[in-house]
């Protein structure tokens, strides 16, 4: 066998698996989204209906409600986690063992199952047994119903998501900060530049491409948020905390309203792809602008 044949044989199994378990289902779901199919009524797919499922989904108030909540959650959570992550990376920059240990411990939220994170926070914020309200009550600050009132539950979920993923931006930014040549910073300090000036004129511009990359990953991932909803609010109160992913899950796997769920999931897919593309274009423009400077 020639080397090329061997290498192709190395590549084929992984590609085949991906084709069968990812790309074929992806195409299948697009196909289903163009047909009429409720699994509860019939085990086989109904007739071709074109874009009808899409227009029905887009006119569904629950879906549009979920869309707005998901956009708000994604924007809020990514801005929070990027800012906090950058701050934590700056705080823990350095190589002594205490700082390294701190960085490792700070990673914990992101390596835990999101369903477990939901459970943990449900416990923290519970109306009567939760330590958060116990502490607030003891201080006489009132005991808000964090997950029980619609508007507040939306904010709470956004903050929980940011809490879980701040470590992601911290760890990536920490790597970015560590790659800044130390003599640049030393030279700036020699010239009498203060901390704020160094941050604004050196650190942020150098790490900007990575900040944007982190923001992109955070934004796309947050648009897909699903797991934490199950163990915090179950989508409630009412439909207030239905994310798009959760709405699709319930429609498809609980009510077996397959074709509409498929249509909605393709809308979400388009949203994720468009977001990723927009961030990458923006990043490229900023980078080429930086080169010209």
């Amino acid at each position, binding site marked *: 066998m020639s*080397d090329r044949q*061997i*290498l192709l044989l*190395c*590549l084929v*199994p992984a*590609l085949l*698996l*991906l084709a069968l*378990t*990812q*790309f074929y289902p*992806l195409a*299948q*779901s697009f196909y289903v989204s163009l047909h009429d199919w409720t699994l509860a009524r019939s085990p086989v797919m109904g007739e071709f209906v074109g874009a009808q499922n899409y227009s029905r989904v887009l006119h569904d108030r629950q879906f549009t409600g979920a869309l707005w909540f998901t956009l708000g959650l994604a924007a809020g959570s990514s801005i929070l986690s990027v800012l906090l992550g950058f701050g934590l990376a700056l*705080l*823990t920059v350095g190589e002594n063992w205490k700082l390294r240990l*701190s960085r*490792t*411990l*700070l990673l*914990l*939220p*992101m*390596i*835990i*199952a*999101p*369903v*477990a994170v939901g*459970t*943990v926070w*449900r*416990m*923290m914020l*519970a109306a009567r047994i939760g*330590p958060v309200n116990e502490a607030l009550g003891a201080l006489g600050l009132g005991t808000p119903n964090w997950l029980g009132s619609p508007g507040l539950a939306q904010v709470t979920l956004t903050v929980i998501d940011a809490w879980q993923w701040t470590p992601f931006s911290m*760890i*990536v930014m920490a*790597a*970015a900060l560590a790659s800044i040549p130390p003599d640049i910073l030393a030279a700036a300090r020699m010239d009498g530049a203060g901390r704020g000036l160094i941050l604004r004129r050196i650190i942020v511009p150098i790490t900007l491409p*990575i900040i944007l*990359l982190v923001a992109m990953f955070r934004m*796309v991932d947050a648009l897909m948020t*699903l797991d934490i909803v199950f*163990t915090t609010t*179950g989508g409630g109160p009412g439909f207030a905390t239905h994310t798009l*992913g959760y709405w*699709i*899950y319930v429609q*498809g*796997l609980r009510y077996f309203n*397959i074709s509409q*769920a*498929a249509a909605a999931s*393709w809308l*979400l*897919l388009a949203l*994720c*792809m468009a977001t990723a593309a927009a961030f990458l274009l923006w990043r490229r423009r900023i980078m080429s602008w930086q080169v010209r400077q």
Partner: protein
Amino acid sequence: MIRRLAIILALAVALGPFVVLMVNSVRPSDAFLAPGAGFIPGTITLDHYRAVFGGDGETLRFLANSVIIATATTLLALLLGAPAAYALARARLPFRLSIVFALAFLIVRFYPKITVALPYYLIMRDLGWLDTHLAVILAHVSVTVPFVVWLMLGFLEELPPEIEQSAMMDGCNAWGRFVRVVLPLSMPALGAAAVLTAFTSWNEFLLASTVASNDAKTLPVRISSFITDKGILWGNMAAMGTVIVLPVALFAFATQRYLVRGLTVGAVKG
């Protein structure tokens, strides 16, 4: 000084909830609702663990499922992913096919898995594989292989090709060079990929809950069903949460070097 305080505050915010979880898992049930019970329970009980693990032994079975599925996923993802990455790094394919294939792996990271979950459920139903370990493992491998490929690809591109040349002189073919020269050098990248893959599988909820209703159920799927009931058994939930969280936390600590590398490489490479 301010910096130290800020770090301590951050650590408290990041770790505090887990401490609460573990403390609650040994707090007696009647101490939950007692006003002013305080954070540290007066007495400690293992009742919740007994309740979670005892009875029909279901939780033990779900724990075993999680371990089996995470292990098999990790082995399979490396077995499929590492050779694929080597092929992408070394094969000269026409029509820029290497780039096309590499992007095919990359794109899996960027769409919602819920789009795949519904048809995946139908496919597994038609194959008669619903609620089997295999169905969950295949799903988990399919979302982790792309990551293994990209992590390895980044590593292999920095590996100078000259290293393989002496082996080539000795008449080693591509597979021999991969196994004897490249793999031993790739241990750091393989380790990072293995750790991340194991975590992902252990934590994954959506695909597992789609195809596993009972026999192949994993721990994350189990914990989500604690809540749909009206009354919440806080103690049992905390015990269950601890069972999910603690192994990951300890494993993360033991493998922190690989972990950090795995987490950063994906993003910084872009």
